[in-house]
C-alpha cells in the first residue's frame, strides 16, 4: 500500500474496529453511530469512551439523553465496566440530560447555551478528551422548535471540533435517511451504521462504515458480537492475501500419510480438507493430527459441530488416541456448537474470538459441512474465506472435515470450498469381496509433489493405519498440484 496522509486517529479499543478503520475514529472530530433499537449503538459509544479512559488515559464525558446514569451504570456493569469507580477517580462524568416535553413550556427565543455550559463545565473539570452524546436526537422530541435545534446542533459540532474533542454521537436509524433527524448532514467526518437482523430465527449483528472522510476503511459489512467482554468487530475480509507462505511442515500424525505428502506432511499455516462419506474416519484422521501437534507442545482448538467433546474423546480413545491428556494439559480446547444456534457471521465471530483467546497453532472444524445448514453455499464459502484469511495470517494450520453424502457426488459437493484448500484428502469406502475397504488419496496438495496413489487404510485400535502401497507408481506418477 502506498504511503498515505492519514488523519490522526483515536483508537476505540474495540477489537476489530480499530483494524477496519486503520487506527480508530477521527481524532478531535465527531463520529455518528446509527442503528435501530437494540443494535448496540450505546454499547459501541460507551466502549469507545471507557476504553479511552482505561486504556488510553483520555478522560471522557458521557452525556446521556435516554438512560439515567444509574441505568447506564448497571447496563455496563454487566460488561465489566465499573462506572462508579471511574467517576470517583475523576476520569469520567456521566451527565443525564432530561428532556421532557410535557414539563417544558416554550415562549420566545432561546438557544441551547445551557447544554454547552454543562458540557464545557464537565469537559474542563476533568480535562476530557472524548465525549459521547447518546442520543442527541432526543432533543427533537423534547423541544418543539426544529429550526433552533438544527442551528444549535450545527454550533455544537463546531464547538466540539474547535475543542478537538473526539466525539461519538448516536442516532436512531430512520426510514429514508440514516437517522431520523438527518444528523448525518452535520457530521461529515465519519458515519458507522449498525444493523441487527433476525432471519430464520438466527440473529446477526453487522457493522458498516458508511463514511470516513480522508481515510481508508473497509466498506464491507462486518459481523460483530456482543458478549460478556463487550463488543467485537470481525475485520477478516480486509486481510486479503498477504499471509506468509511457510516452508515448515507438520506431521499429519499418520506416518504413511506424511509419506504420501512428499514425505513430510502438511505445510504449516495451510488449509486442509478431509472429505469422506460417513464412517470413513475423517474425525480419526483429524484426531491424529491434533494428537501429533499436542505432542509437539502446540495448542489446538477443535470446533465441533456435531458431537460433544466427551463423545468424541471416547470414540478416539477406542482407536488408541487419548485426547483427554491434552485437554488436561491445556493444549487442546474444544468448542462445541450446534450450527443452527447462530447465523454464519456469529459462528465466524465466535470462532475468531476463540482463536484470538486461545492462540492455537492448529484449528480443526469438524465437520464444516454442517455449517451448510445455516447458510447458502456461497455464504458458507464467503465465511470460510474469511476464517481462512484470518487463520493464515496467524500461520495457523487449519483442518476441515467434510461429510459427503454419497460416494458419487463426492467431488461435486466439496467443489465449492475445495478451491480454498491447499491440501485435499479424500477418504472413501468401497465394497470388495464382501468386505468394506477404505481408501485414502491426496486429490491435491499445493506446493508439493504428493503421491497420486490410492492407498488402503484401516481403523485399528491403534489408530488409522495406512497399508503398504500396492505396486507403487511414484516417480512417474508424481503429481504436482496447481499452486
Amino acid at each position, binding site marked *: 500500500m502506498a504511503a498515505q496522509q492519514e488523519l490522526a486517529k483515536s483508537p476505540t479499543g474495540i477489537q476489530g474496529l480499530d483494524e477496519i478503520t486503520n487506527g480508530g475514529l477521527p481524532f478531535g472530530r465527531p463520529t455518528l453511530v446509527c442503528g435501530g433499537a437494540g443494535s448496540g449503538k450505546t454499547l459501541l459509544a460507551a466502549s469507545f469512551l471507557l476504553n479511552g479512559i482505561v486504556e488510553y488515559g483520555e478522560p471522557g464525558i458521557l452525556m446521556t439523553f435516554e438512560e439515567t446514569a444509574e441505568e447506564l451504570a448497571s447496563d455496563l456493569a454487566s460488561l465489566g465496566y465499573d462506572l462508579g469507580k471511574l467517576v470517583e477517580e475523576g476520569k469520567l462524568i456521566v*451527565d443525564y*440530560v*432530561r*428532556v421532557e416535553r410535557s*414539563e*417544558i*413550556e*416554550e*415562549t*420566545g*427565543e*432561546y*438557544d*441551547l*447555551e*445551557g*447544554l454547552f*455550559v*454543562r458540557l*464545557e*463545565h464537565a469537559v474542563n473539570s476533568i480535562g476530557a478528551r472524548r465525549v459521547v452524546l447518546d442520543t442527541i436526537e432526543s*432533543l427533537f422530541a*423534547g*423541544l418543539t422548535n426544529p429550526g433552533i435545534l438544527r442551528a444549535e446542533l450545527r454550533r455544537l459540532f463546531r464547538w466540539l471540533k474547535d475543542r478537538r474533542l473526539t466525539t461519538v454521537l448516536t442516532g436512531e436509524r430512520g426510514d429514508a435517511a440514516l437517522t431520523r433527524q438527518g444528523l448525518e448532514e452535520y457530521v461529515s467526518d465519519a458515519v458507522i451504521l449498525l444493523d441487527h437482523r433476525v432471519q430464520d430465527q438466527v440473529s446477526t449483528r453487522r457493522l458498516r462504515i458508511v463514511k470516513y472522510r480522508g481515510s481508508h476503511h473497509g466498506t464491507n459489512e462486518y459481523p460483530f458480537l456482543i458478549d460478556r467482554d463487550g463488543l467485537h468487530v470481525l475485520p477478516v475480509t480486509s486481510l486479503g492475501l498477504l499471509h506468509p507462505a511457510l516452508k515448515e511442515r507438520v506431521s499429519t500424525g499418520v506416518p504413511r500419510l506424511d509419506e504420501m505428502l512428499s514425505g513430510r506432511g502438511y505445510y504449516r499455516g495451510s488449509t486442509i480438507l478431509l472429505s469422506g462419506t460417513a464412517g470413513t474416519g475423517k474425525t480419526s484422521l483429524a484426531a491424529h493430527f491434533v494428537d501429533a501437534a499436542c505432542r509437539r507442545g502446540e495448542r489446538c482448538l477443535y470446533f465441533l459441530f456435531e458431537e460433544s467433546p466427551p463423545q468424541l474423546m471416547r470414540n478416539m480413545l477406542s482407536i488408541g488416541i487419548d485426547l483427554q491428556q491434552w485437554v488436561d494439559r491445556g493444549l487442546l480446547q474444544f468448542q462445541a456448537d450446534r450450527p443452527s444456534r447462530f447465523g454464519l457471521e456469529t459462528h465466524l465471530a465466535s470462532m475468531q474470538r476463540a482463536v484470538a483467546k486461545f492462540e492455537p497453532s492448529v484449528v480443526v472444524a469438524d465437520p464444516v459441512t454442517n455449517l451448510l445448514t445455516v447458510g447458502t453455499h456461497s455464504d458458507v464459502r464467503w465465511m470460510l474465506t474469511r476464517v481462512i484469511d484470518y487463520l493464515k495470517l496467524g500461520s495457523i494450520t487449519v483442518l476441515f472435515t467434510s461429510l459427503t453424502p454419497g460416494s458419487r457426488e463426492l467431488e461435486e459437493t466439496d467443489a465449492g470450498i475445495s478451491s480454498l484448500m491447499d491440501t485435499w484428502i479424500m477418504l472413501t469406502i468401497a465394497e470388495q469381496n464382501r468386505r468394506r475397504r477404505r481408501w485414502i488419496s491426496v486429490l491435491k496438495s499445493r506446493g508439493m509433489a504428493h503421491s497420486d496413489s490410492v492407498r488402503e487404510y484401516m481403523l485399528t485400535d491403534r489408530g488409522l493405519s495406512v497399508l503398504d502401497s500396492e505396486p507403487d507408481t511414484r516417480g512417474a506418477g508424481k503429481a504436482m498440484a496447481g499452486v
Partner: protein
Amino acid sequence: MQTQLNAATPLTTSSETFLLRLYVAGQTPKCVRAFENLKRICEEYLAGRYHIEMVDLLQNPQLARGDQILAVPTLVRRLPEPIKKIIGDLSNTERVLVGLDLRPARRPGS
C-alpha cells in the same frame, strides 16, 4: 376533578409565594429581554408574592446540571411545587402564565 376551570380563575391560591429562578448565560439580548418580561409579568400578576433569583451559568456552570438546564434562558418555578420550566425570552405573556400555572393550559387543538 369536579372544579370547573375558566380562563379567569388562577390555578394557585393567592397566598402562595412564587420562588422563581431565571437561568441566563451572560448579558445577551435574549437574557436581558427575558428578565424584563419576567419582572413585568410578576409585577402584574404576582405583586408582592414573588422572588426572582438570577443564575448566570457563565459564572456558575455547575448549577446547570441540578435543575436540568438545557436551553437559555430558562425560567424555573421552584415554588410552589411542582417544579415548572419555561424556556425562551418569555415574550409571550399568555404562555408564561400557562407555564407558571397562573392560567389553565388551552386544550390541544384550540
